């Protein structure tokens, strides 16, 4: 009897263990299956707007200061301390900032979100690990470090100052020599960026790098000759493919969009009316004008006093020489590359995004 039962028990035991083995992963699945009110999975909605944090921060503050509102508190101009709803400590600095400045001389770091109600010039080397908000013009000290800084008017970062996360000015933003802008920097007015500044993502109506001199006026289009380009295969009525390199001679004019498998070289003072794409190196000599976009899979160099109207994208390194202008007044554009080096004197209207490192060269 036992001899016949043993294999049966063994078989049943094996079946039970097997079922258990396969069933175990099903337990969380079956429990989860019974939930009916799950949310749909998210579709990515990050639009990558460089003003993202700046746009959210004022409404974040408004949530915490309801009665009285932040504007009322700032109008009163009295000092106040407390904690926001998320337990972040904050300190409202009185309008003239005398008490705050007195204290700032003996401590190196402000352990609270600092809200300035009046215009102030801050001492050197002061750190703001909880960020700062200025209702009026704010000037940081030299080598100051701020986690983030929001200015309702103009902001000035003095020599060697660092922003760790983001900075936004509703007016103009001035960044002096040797500052470091980690994260996003934006201004609703213009932005002036001094030599030796490191940056990642910048956005303003007009970005001036270093000292900008009077722009060089290009020769009129009527003085240019029609370019003779190498054999190009038409992809459509206005787009042409070039299997090798594309070279547009100096002082010539070319119409149409071009896609080159090789390198692209645009000669001095040449004018291209169309978009350009190169899988290799892209070089544009001084004074050339591209009325369109420039896309490169490799390195790109934009010569002195060039004018580019459309977006500029480089797959590796991008160098922008002095006097170059990208975008136009009222016509913003985007400049994107892993590594961007900009010489003083260049102007960009719109957005600059150095995915790895951006740097303004010293004069």
């Amino acid at each position: 009897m036992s001899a016949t039962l043993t294999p049966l028990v063994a078989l049943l035991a094996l079946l039970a263990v097997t079922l258990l083995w396969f069933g175990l992963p099903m337990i969380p699945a079956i429990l989860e299956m019974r939930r009916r009110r799950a949310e749909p999975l998210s579709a990515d909605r990050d639009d990558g707007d460089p003003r993202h944090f700046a746009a959210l921060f004022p409404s974040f503050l408004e949530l915490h200061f309801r009665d009285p509102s932040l504007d009322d508190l700032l109008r009163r101009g009295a000092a106040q301390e407390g904690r926001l709803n998320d337990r972040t400590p904050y300190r409202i600095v009185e309008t003239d900032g005398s008490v705050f400045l007195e204290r700032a001389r003996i401590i190196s770091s402000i352990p609270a979100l600092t809200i300035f109600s009046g215009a102030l010039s801050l001492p050197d080397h002061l750190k703001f690990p909880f960020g700062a908000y200025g209702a009026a013009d704010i000037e940081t000290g030299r080598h100051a470090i701020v986690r983030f800084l929001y200015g309702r008017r103009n902001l000035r970062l003095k020599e060697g100052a660092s922003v760790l996360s983001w900075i936004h000015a509703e007016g103009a933003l001035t960044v002096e020599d040797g500052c470091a802008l980690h994260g996003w920097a934006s201004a609703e007015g213009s932005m002036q960026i001094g030599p030796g500044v490191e940056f990642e993502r910048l956005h303003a109506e007009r970005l001036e790098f270093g000292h900008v001199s009077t722009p060089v006026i290009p020769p009129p289009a009527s003085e240019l000759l029609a370019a003779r380009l190498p054999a190009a295969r038409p992809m459509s009525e206005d787009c042409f493919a070039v299997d090798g390199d594309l070279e547009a001679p100096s002082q010539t004019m070319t119409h149409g969009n071009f896609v080159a498998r090789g390198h692209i070289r645009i000669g001095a003072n040449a004018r291209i009316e169309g978009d350009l794409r190169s899988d290799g190196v892209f070089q544009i000599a001084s004074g050339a004008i591209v009325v369109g976009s420039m896309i490169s899979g490799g390195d790109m160099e934009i010569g002195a006093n060039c004018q580019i109207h459309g977006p500029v994208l480089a797959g590796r390194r991008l160098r922008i020489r002095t006097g170059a202008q990208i975008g136009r007044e009222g016509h913003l554009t985007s400049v994107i590359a892993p590594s961007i080096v900009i010489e003083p004197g260049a102007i960009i209207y719109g957005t600059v995004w150095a995915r790895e490192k951006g740097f303004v060269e010293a004069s």
Partner: protein
Amino acid sequence: MSAFVTFLRCGAYAAVALICLNGIRRYWLTLSRLMARHANPYAGIDSADWPHVTALIPAHNERLALPRLLDALLEVTYPRDRLRLLPINDRSDDRTGSILDRYAARHGDRITPFHRKTGKPGKAAALADATGLIQDEIILVVDANHIPGTDVIRQLVAPFFDPRVGAVMGHVAPRSVERGFFARLVDLEHLNMRLVPLCAGTIAAVRKTALASIGGWNADAACAHTDAAFRLALGGWQVVHENLAGSFEEAPTGWAARALQLQRRTRSHLQSLLRYGARLMLRRNATLAERLGSFFLMSEALTPVALPGAWILLVALFFVDAHLPRALFPALALGTWVSAGNIAACFEAGAAARLARGSREILLMPLTFFGGAVNLTATVAATISPFPKPSSEHATVGETPPSAQRRTK
């Protein structure tokens, strides 16, 4: 060894090799999506002189879905003066036409309805007719059962600053009214698809001049976008899958509807692959990577058929081939497990759920087996059913069709 056995052996070798290659590809894609740095060069373009865009919305009896889509499109962040909506009332016999007229009366500067009362049935034919009315350089095609995100148009249009880009496909996430078990499994499967840049095309944009250069929309195609995407690639244009351009699609409500949707999708992909796959692989000027990409795209589509094919061939060989290579069996088992079995589904779903930042859907992973079974059955059924004969006639972009001319006068 008889010729018959040799034939069976060659078939089995080819099927097993295809399955194994596809498995490697799927792992490579998933690992690359998880670990590699992703160069999405166009995603950062937030400031530009945005081109004028016309959004075509083919709608056949879509009175319920259309208002929701139009409301969403009127709210997008794209510059108002550069986006025109052209909904196509494609021979509807419900209130679709009157709903469109009501919207046009309210937003006359932004919505121009096109009432299509005659002509060849089908979305591709409707698109071909409506494209003739468009002057703008960029054409956006949105299915009526979609709800686009607020930034989706900007993200779809940004790649067109690259003159090589001919078309851009967006990413689609399902959304259903009933958030039950079925809807959540479909969520997971869509997340799987997100890892593979298929030309789903339910939200897509195309450059008008590029479309004209390949002869316009193909009115015979099972899916006009997929067909156009293949022909654009043959013409040297780049087709971009823009993962960030997300929109929601109304998900099917049951397994039968899901199987039907999968069959339609499989047929459209297979039709395009059969028509253009080999040409894409052998085209002049293509790089090795492009050729390999084309080959793997074909292997992806053929794997669901190769799988039961390999099983049948190996069972037949077991009985007729005395010297059957034993290595075939473990290779088939491994290949099947990796490329089409639970490992692939779980691995991709797990990776996708991780990318969805801590979604609880990851707990449902073991149940993807049932979804996988429906997928396999639907794709095999779609693959072995006959295809309509292709026509060489394409609708030409830029020429207004007679039906449209009558309407616009």
